[in-house]
């Protein structure tokens, strides 16, 4: 039966949220212009409206989650993003897999931020909340799903499947509800995908706060006062966006198989650019607080970061990227609406800024080379140039679309070697940044002239050169550009560490945010240099290259074919593929697939043997077991070093009918490197192509060869009982026992021969791993001979790529230190703001 309540509730809440957002904006406007006498009334009224909006927004989210959680596949959203087999934490990922869910997440965060702003501000509440409410109105309109004539506003997540899809079944039975949904994109079935999108959207949402304070400041002629309340939020925004980026990178590293953590994909760039601009904005805002310069620059940067987030959303979600991104978002027809949203706020921001421009205080004095303002300004400029260098090529599809909309032809395509193209600029910009942070921090905390600068910098310089020399020698860094990177990285670490120690000795930890974040930057730089610059593919095909005498000989084959049980040399290791595994509920680690038999029902199986891990028995033979996502196979690869088993890795792969092979890597983590392995091709076990019959006539204890494997016919015995088959009186069952030796693995295969009522029955044995089917075809008692019919096919195999990533942990550690630095800075700046507010000055 179709449940329409959840959908109707959600749809109603959407409309309520939209209307209440518009009314809130109006009401807060009345509040800002009202006389002192009327202000409290308008304020309370506006707040109540915003609370209504908040409740409506939360109701939207709850309705949608209820639809997914209760498997209401009569709804298009649940049908296309979820399935019965999904565990609850992945249902959360289903929620924001679709664009509508992502917008709801964004709306939700704005509500949370709006409530915080209301309750932490006094004089800023009115104008700031006008901007908030307007943004909410635009965002909610994305999921309105209202059609007026030819105009479609928003795409509702609450439409029923029968309204979304015109399948013939609905003409026959309008109440048809599919049994199961089509499932969640397997790439998103990862714990990082449960927490990465909320973080990123909180980052997106939080860019609104400094922007809203800025708009409020410009509109209410407080041209510079907005900085104080906005600054902690700007740092918060940069911290959360940074965290979202890192989580995304880490997710890519552990789930995707492009072989790294950063690919300069348009979707990644689209977040990286606003982050850079926000970081630049923080720096100019801090400069302004110290010395009343760079206010105009701060205004431009804060506007840019907010607009760039909208532009990023437009790029990713409008379908304009088309083929150029691995992140596939289809066009829901929202691109026009997104564009209006972007242009509206751009126009408002430009209008208010231009109107206020001549009143904005500037400092006439030329910044001296020995002033911190000068160095921070250079730093902010470098960050902006980095952003410019990334956003320009990322926008090539937009450029093509613009040219084509004017009737022109543009055949520009993004650079083919994205990583190389972006790295050659970003690396050097980052080196400049590292050097600037080192010098800039000294200027920040001390008054400097030429001589004192030299004196203070000499020691850190010498120490960092020594450290760099050590890293270069130990890490065998002989490339000149990389040597420069190491020098710059260690210089910024040493210089900032010096400042950090001085600060800790003299005053509180509260001031340490900047130097911590910069130390993180230095470590990230060194970590990236090692893990990317010295990343080495070790799965070169070393096994008997067939020289073709063509250009192919010059190309390295980066993948290696591993037949089951066959030792294959991979650089310093001998790798052996050992077969498939599954994840079983309640059992630690992985379980061999060959001891599990598929049972009826999704994710159900029967154990064919006891499941024992570390001496503890989890399941007995014949027991029912529950598999975690049965379509996922883990391919066990044993790595040997000097004939000793060093470790095993189990990269995951699943064949997905709509997306092809989904492959997730598995890495061996060392302190100083990762060995990263993923499967690029798997063998399809269904419908094998069997070779023609081979017939063997053998006696017990005879040895023969089945596809090059030594096979011994051990014995044949009459048996009284058979697994899974009932024997009657008068039946004769013979079980033959064959042992097959495949490299170091010995397998026992037991085909069965039955005579019942003078009829012969044969139960062949199929071994997927070895690719053989054996049947006991006949028994010749006079000669004591047994006739076996054997068909063979290819053995199971995987094709694998293995990459060594040195020093990747320095990168992760650097990102964590940088985030801690941000947090310290947020605390400090919020503390400053709240003290001023409580004095009644804000």
């Amino acid at each position, binding site marked *: 039966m179709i449940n329409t309540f959840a959908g109707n509730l959600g749809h109603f809440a959407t409309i309520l949220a939209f209307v209440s957002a518009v009314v809130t904006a109006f009401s807060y406007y009345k509040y800002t212009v009202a006389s002192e006498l009327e202000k409290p009334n308008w304020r309370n009224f506006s707040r109540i409206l915003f609370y209504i909006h908040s409740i409506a927004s939360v109701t939207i989210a709850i309705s949608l989650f209820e639809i997914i959680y209760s498997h209401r596949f009569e709804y298009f959203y649940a049908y296309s993003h979820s399935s019965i087999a999904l565990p609850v934490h992945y249902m959360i990922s289903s929620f924001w897999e679709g664009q509508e869910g992502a917008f709801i997440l964004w709306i939700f965060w704005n509500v949370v931020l709006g409530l915080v702003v209301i309750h932490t501000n006094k004089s800023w509440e009115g104008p700031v909340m006008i901007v908030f409410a307007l943004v909410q109105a635009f965002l909610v309109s994305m999921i309105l799903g209202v059609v007026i004539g030819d105009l479609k506003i928003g795409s509702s997540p609450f439409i029923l499947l029968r309204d*979304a899809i015109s399948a013939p079944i609905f003409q026959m039975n309008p109440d048809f509800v599919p049994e199961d949904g089509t499932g969640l994109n397997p790439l998103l079935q990862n714990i990082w995908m449960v927490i990465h999108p909320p973080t990123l959207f909180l980052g997106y949402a939080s860019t609104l706060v400094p922007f809203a304070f800025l708009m409020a400041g410009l509109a209410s002629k407080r041209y510079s006062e907005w900085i104080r309340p906005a600054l902690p939020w700007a740092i918060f925004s940069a911290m959360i966006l940074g965290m979202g980026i890192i989580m995304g990178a880490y997710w890519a590293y552990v789930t995707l198989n492009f072989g790294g953590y950063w690919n300069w994909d348009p979707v990644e760039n689209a977040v990286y650019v606003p982050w850079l601009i926000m970081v630049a904005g923080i720096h100019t805002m801090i400069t302004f607080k110290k010395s009343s310069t760079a206010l105009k620059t701060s205004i431009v940067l804060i506007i840019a970061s907010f607009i760039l987030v909208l532009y990023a959303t437009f790029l990713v979600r409008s379908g304009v990227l088309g*083929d150029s991104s691995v992140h596939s978002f289809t066009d829901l027809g929202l691109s026009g609406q997104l564009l209006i949203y972007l242009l509206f706020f751009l126009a408002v921001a430009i209008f208010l800024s231009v109107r206020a421009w001549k009143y904005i205080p500037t400092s006439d004095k030329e910044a001296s080379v020995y002033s911190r303002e000068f160095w921070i300004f*250079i730093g902010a400029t470098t960050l902006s140039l980095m952003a410019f260098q990334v956003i320009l090529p990322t926008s090539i599809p937009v450029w093509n679309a613009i040219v084509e909309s004017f009737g022109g032809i543009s055949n520009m395509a993004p650079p083919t070697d994205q990583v190389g193209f972006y790295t050659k600029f970003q690396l050097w910009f980052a080196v400049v940044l590292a050097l600037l942070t080192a010098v800039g921090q000294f200027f920040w905390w001390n008054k400097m002239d030429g001589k004192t600068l030299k004196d203070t910098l000499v020691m850190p310089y010498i120490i960092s050169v020594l450290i760099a020399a050590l890293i270069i020698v130990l890490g065998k860094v002989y490339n000149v550009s990389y040597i420069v990177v190491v020098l710059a990285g260690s210089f910024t670490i040493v210089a900032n560490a010096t400042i950090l120690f001085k600060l800790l000795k003299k005053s509180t930890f509260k001031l340490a945010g900047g130097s911590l974040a910069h130390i993180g930057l230095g470590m990230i730089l060194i970590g990236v240099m090692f893990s990317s610059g010295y990343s080495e593919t070790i799965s070169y095909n070393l096994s008997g290259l067939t020289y073709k005498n063509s250009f192919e000989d010059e190309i390295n084959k980066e993948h290696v*074919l591993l037949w089951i049980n066959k030792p294959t040399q991979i650089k310093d290791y001998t790798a052996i593929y050992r077969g498939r595994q599954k994840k079983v509920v309640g059992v630690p680690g992985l379980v061999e697939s060959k001891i599990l038999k598929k049972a009826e029902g999704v994710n159900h199986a029967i154990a064919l043997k006891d499941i024992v891990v570390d001496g503890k028995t989890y399941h007995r033979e014949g027991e029912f077991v529950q598999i975690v996502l049965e379509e996922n196979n883990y391919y066990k690869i044993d790595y040997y070093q000097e004939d000793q088993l060093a470790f095993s890795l189990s990269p995951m792969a699943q064949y997905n009918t*709509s997306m092809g092979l989904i492959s997730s890597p598995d890495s061996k983590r060392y302190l100083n490197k990762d060995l990263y392995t993923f499967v690029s091709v798997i063998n399809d076990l269904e419908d094998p192509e069997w070779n023609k019959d081979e017939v063997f006539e053998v006696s017990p204890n005879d040895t023969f060869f089945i596809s090059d494997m030594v096979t011994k016919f051990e014995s044949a015995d009459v048996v009284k009982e058979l697994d899974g088959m009932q024997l009657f009186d008068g039946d004769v069952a013979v079980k033959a026992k064959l042992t097959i030796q495949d490299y170091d693995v010995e397998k026992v295969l037991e085909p069965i021969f039955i005579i019942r009522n003078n009829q012969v029955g044969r139960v062949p044995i199929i071994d997927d791993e070895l690719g053989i089917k054996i049947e006991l075809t006949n028994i010749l008692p006079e000669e004591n001979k047994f006739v076996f019919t054997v068909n063979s096919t290819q053995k199971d195999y995987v094709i694998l790529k293995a990459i060594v990533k040195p020093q990747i942990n320095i990168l992760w550690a650097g990102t964590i230190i940088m985030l801690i630095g941000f947090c310290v800075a947020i605390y400090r700046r919020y503390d400053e703001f709240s003290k001023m507010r409580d004095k009644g000055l804000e």
Partner: protein
Amino acid sequence: MKKGHILGLGIIAIAIVIIVSMLGDASTYESFATAKEMKVKGEDKAIHVVGQLKKGISGEVEGIEVNENKTSFYFMMIDNDGTEQKVFYNEPVPADFHRSEQVVVIGAYKSEEIFMADKILMKCPSKYQETEVNTAGM
């Protein structure tokens, strides 16, 4: 000249370098014919070619030759102008390659006969292909 002006000029200079480098490194969409012309002229830049896999009368994909160790393969592609071309890809055959409706190869001519792809983008029929999304009216 004031320091601010020098700085401004420096920024503009770097911005120009960035733009020029982007235009220089940006790839283009070409056909096999124009790609070959570029090769003859000695331009080695990697380009994008859009097309389809060669299919037989019954719709079966033709001309895929997988190398012995399964880690690279050749295939026949027909670009949007109808030119047929043998392409080499130094990666294992992607899953679903046979089902792709459209392929984009990024690469360059390696010799007169063979186009070598550095990267292949595929467009596969989506699971909702045969269905049509309508909007819910109010």
